[in-house]
C-alpha cells in the first residue's frame, strides 16, 4: 500500500505523520491525474513520502508551509502553459538546494534550456521509465547526502583539468565548478571514465538512465560542451565520432 493520501483535490497527504519524519518527502506537481498517481505509487514503493498537486496554486500553498525534499514538476499545469517554470522559479527562491526535476511531455530544446537555466537539476521527458525516474530521484538524494559528508577522494575521477565527483555529482574544470544537470553529469561521467573510448548514443543513454532519441543526445552533448566552454573557451575534450558516438580526449 503506497503511503499516499489523496483528498480529491489533487493534493495528497501522508497517511501516517510518523513516517513523514522518517521518509524523504517528494512533491509531484502534475495536472494529469492518472500520470500523477502512477508516479506517486512508483516512488512511494521506493519508500518515499509523496505529496501530489494538480496545479501551481495548491503546490505553492503547500511549499510555503513546508518544503519537500525533492520536487518533480510538469511544465504545463492545467491552464498555465508554463506554470511549471514559474513554480520552479518560486521554489528556487525559497530554497537554493532543493532538488528539482522537470518531468514533461515537452521535449523541445528551448524548454530544456529554459528549465535548466531556472535551476532545475534535471530535465526529463515523459518517455522516462519509472525505474529510471526512481534511479534519478535516488541519485539526487544521494548527492544531497554526499554533500553533507566530508570529501571522499576515492570517488573523485580526475582527467587532466577535469575532476568528477561521483558521489556529490559535482564537476570541475581547472578547479572551477561546472554546473551540469543530472543527465549531463552522467554523460560526462560515462565519457570521462574511459578516455579515448567511443561511447555510442545507446551507451550514453544507459549511463544517464534515460531513453532519448539521437537528436536529444546531440543537444545534451552540445549543452555540455557549451557549459565547459563557458569555463574554458578552448575546451574540446568531447569529440564527435560521426556515425558512432562521442569520446573523451585528453
Amino acid at each position: 500500500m503506497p503511503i499516499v493520501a489523496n483528498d480529491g483535490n489533487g493534493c495528497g497527504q501522508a497517511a501516517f505523520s510518523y513516517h513523514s519524519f522518517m521518509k524523504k518527502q517528494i512533491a509531484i506537481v502534475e495536472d494529469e491525474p492518472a500520470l500523477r498517481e502512477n508516479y506517486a505509487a512508483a516512488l512511494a514503493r521506493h519508500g518515499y513520502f509523496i505529496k501530489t498537486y494538480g496545479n501551481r496554486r495548491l503546490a505553492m500553498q503547500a511549499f510555503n508551509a513546508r518544503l519537500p525534499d525533492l520536487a518533480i514538476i510538469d511544465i504545463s499545469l492545467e491552464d498555465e502553459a508554463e506554470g511549471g517554470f514559474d513554480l520552479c522559479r518560486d521554489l528556487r527562491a525559497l530554497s537554493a538546494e532543493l532538488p528539482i526535476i522537470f518531468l514533461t511531455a515537452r521535449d523541445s530544446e528551448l524548454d530544456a534550456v529554459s528549465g535548466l537555466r531556472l535551476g532545475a537539476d534535471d530535465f526529463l521527458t515523459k518517455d522516462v521509465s519509472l525505474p529510471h525516474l526512481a534511479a534519478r530521484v535516488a541519485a539526487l538524494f544521494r548527492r544531497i547526502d554526499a554533500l553533507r559528508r566530508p570529501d571522499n577522494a576515492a570517488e573523485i575521477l580526475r582527467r587532466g583539468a577535469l575532476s568528477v565527483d561521483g558521489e556529490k555529482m559535482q564537476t570541475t574544470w581547472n578547479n572551477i565548478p561546472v554546473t551540469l544537470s543530472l543527465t549531463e553529469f552522467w554523460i560526462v561521467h560515462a565519457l570521462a571514465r574511459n578516455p579515448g573510448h567511443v561511447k555510442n548514443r545507446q551507451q550514453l543513454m544507459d549511463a544517464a538512465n534515460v531513453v532519448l532519441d539521437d537528436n536529444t543526445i546531440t543537444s545534451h552533448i552540445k549543452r555540455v560542451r557549451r557549459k565547459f566552454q563557458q569555463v574554458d573557451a578552448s575546451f574540446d575534450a568531447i569529440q564527435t565520432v560521426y556515425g558512432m558516438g562521442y569520446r573523451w580526449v585528453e
Partner: protein
Amino acid sequence: MSIRLQLLAVALTTLVLPWAGCQYARELETALRGSQEESLLASAGTIANALSAQPQRVFRDPGDLAAFSAAAGDLYVYPLPTQPLLDGYRQDWNISASPAPMPTSTGYHARLQAGSTERYLYLYVEVDDAHFDAQPNGARPGQNRFDRVELTLQGSEGAPITYFFATNAPGLIPAQLVVKDDGVEHVAPESRIQAFWLQTSAGYHLEARIPLSFVAQRLWVEAIDGSGNGRCGADPATSPQGGRLFSTTSGLDSLLSTFVREGTRVTVIDANALKLGTAGSLRASLPGDADDSALTWYRYFIGADTSNMPIVANSPDHFGGDSVRDALQGHPHAQWVQGGGNLDLLLTAAAPILIDGQPRGAVVLEQSADQLLSLRDRAGSRLFNLTLLATACAVVIMLGFATWISMRIGRLGAAADSAVGSDGRIRLKMPESSSADEIGALARGFERLLARLNEHTQYLRTLGGKLSHELRTPLTIVRSSLDNLESEGLRDDQLRYITRAREGTARLQSILSALGAAARVEEIIKQSERVSFDLCELLASAVAAYRDGFPDARFTLELPEGASFVRGAPDLIAQLLDKLIENAVDFCPPGGAISVRLERIQTNYVLQVGNDGPLIGETLMGHLFESLFEQRAGRDDKPHFGLGLYIVRLIAEFHGGTAAAANRADGGGVVFSITLPMI
C-alpha cells in the same frame, strides 16, 4: 486540336463573306439584266414607233406583203460595203452566209447570192457542171447548146429583157442579149453588164455586175446546161412575176444611226426577218476597261450560269430567235442569247413595227453583255476583294488572338505543372491572376486551390509533430501503469502479458518518435550554430562507422584531395548522411555496393550517395524530397513516414544547398546528390 487551330477553323467561316459577295454579285447581275432588258425593250419600242410613222423610209414597197419565197426566185441582196473585184470569187464580198441553192427540178444544181453597192447589183452563181460546153462564136440560145446563165431583168419600160452569160473562153465577159435586127436575131453584147466566168473542176463560177439602173423590183436567174436538159432557177414560166429583190432600204442605215446608242446595234427587219437596215456596233470600249482579262477569273466564281441560254446564230441576212419571232407576231420581246462566233452573251430586244395595226417588221436592238459584265465585274471584284481582305484580316486577327490566348493558357498550364516544385514547396502565385477575364479567373481558381493545398500540406507537415506530442502523455500513462503493475509481484503468466504490452508501447514510442522527427529537425535547425568543419573527415569517420553498423553492405568512399571545409552544423550533416545511408541500405540489393563520393564542382561540394537498387520512376522523382512521401513497396519492421529524405532536404537547405535524386545513366542504380556551397 490546339486552340489556335480551332480558332483558325472558326476564322475560316468568314469565307462565307466572299461567298455572300458572289451571291450578291449574281443577284446584282440578274437585276441589272432585268433593267437592261426593260430599257432595251423600251428603246426598241420607241424606235419602232418612230419608224412606223414613216414606212416609206423603211420598206422598199410598203404594200408588198407576200412572204419571201426562195422557190419563187426571191432573192436577198446583201449590202456590200466595198466594190468587189470581178474575179469569180466572192471572198471579197465579206459575207459569211453561203450562196443559197437555186430551185431546181432537174437535178442540175447551182447556188446564187446577190449583193449590192450603191451603184451596182452583184450576182454570184456557182454551178455544179463538170462539163464545160463552150459557146460557139455568136451562137444564140436555142440555136446551139452551150452552158449559160440567163438573167431576166424587169426593164424600166415594163417588158422584161433576158440577158445571158456564156463564153468559149472563161474570163471577163459582157452579158449578151438576143436582139432582132431587121428581123434577124443575132447576139449582141451588153457591155454595161460585166461578168467573170471562172471555170473550176466542179463547174463554173459566175460573178456578174449589173448597174442598178438596169434593175427594177424583180429578176429571174437561171443556170442552163449546154449538154443536157439540166437547168435550175425559177424560170419565167413557173414564176411569171419573177423573183423579188429583197434589199436593204437605202437611207435607213443613216436614219437608224440617229437612234443608236454606243454598244448597241439596231437592226430593222421586215416581216420575213430579213434585214432592212442596221446601225451601230456591239463592241464598245468602256473607259478603264484595260484590265478586262484580269477580271475574268472572278467570273468563274461570281458569273451567272449562261450555258443554258439559247444559242441563236443569226445569218447575215435575217434574224432568228424567240424575240424576233414574237416581235413579228406583234409582241415586243427581249431575250438573252448566246450569239456570234464565240458565243458572247447578247441581249436582243425586238419590237414590232406596226402599220395599220399589222406587224410589218421589227426593230431589233442588240446589246452585248460585255457592258453589263464589266459593270458587274467591277462591283463584284471590288466586293470580292473587300470581303477577301476582311476574311484575311479576320484570320490574321483570330490567329493572333488565338496565339495570345493559347500562350496565356500555356503559361498558366506550365505554372500549374510546376506549382508544386521538386522540393515539395508550393508556389502560391500564378501568372495571369490579375487578368479580369476567364483565364484570370482560372488562375485565381488555381491560386485558391494551391492555397488550400498548401494549408493542407502544412497541416500534414506539422501533423507528425503534433501527433507525437499529443500521444506522448497517454502513452506515458500506459507505460507508467505497466511499470507499476510489474512491481506488484505478478505471476509469470501475468508478466508475459505485461511484456507484450511493453513491447507494444515501445513500438508505439518509436513510431511517434519517427513521426516527430521532422518537426524536431526543423526545431534543431532553428537553433543550430554554424561552424566550419572538414567534410572529408566527417565522411571518412562516418563511413567507417557505417561499415561497422551495416556489416552486410559494401561501402565505397571517394574523397577529393585535401580538406573540404564547409560551414554548417556537422551533427546535422551527419544526420543527413545517416538518412541517405539508411535509405541506400534499404534499397540496395544484397551484394550491391553503396558508394559515397565527394566532388568539388565549381564553388560547390557535391556529395553523392549511390546504391545499386531499383530505379526511381520519372513521376516519383520530383516528390522524393517531399514531406510524408513514401513509396516503399515492401514492409519491414521499421515505420516509414516519408520523412527521411525530407529531413535530408531540410538539412541541405539549411546549409544553402540542394538535394536531388537521379537514376544512373547506365540504369544500374540510383544516386542522391547533395550540393553544398564551399566557404
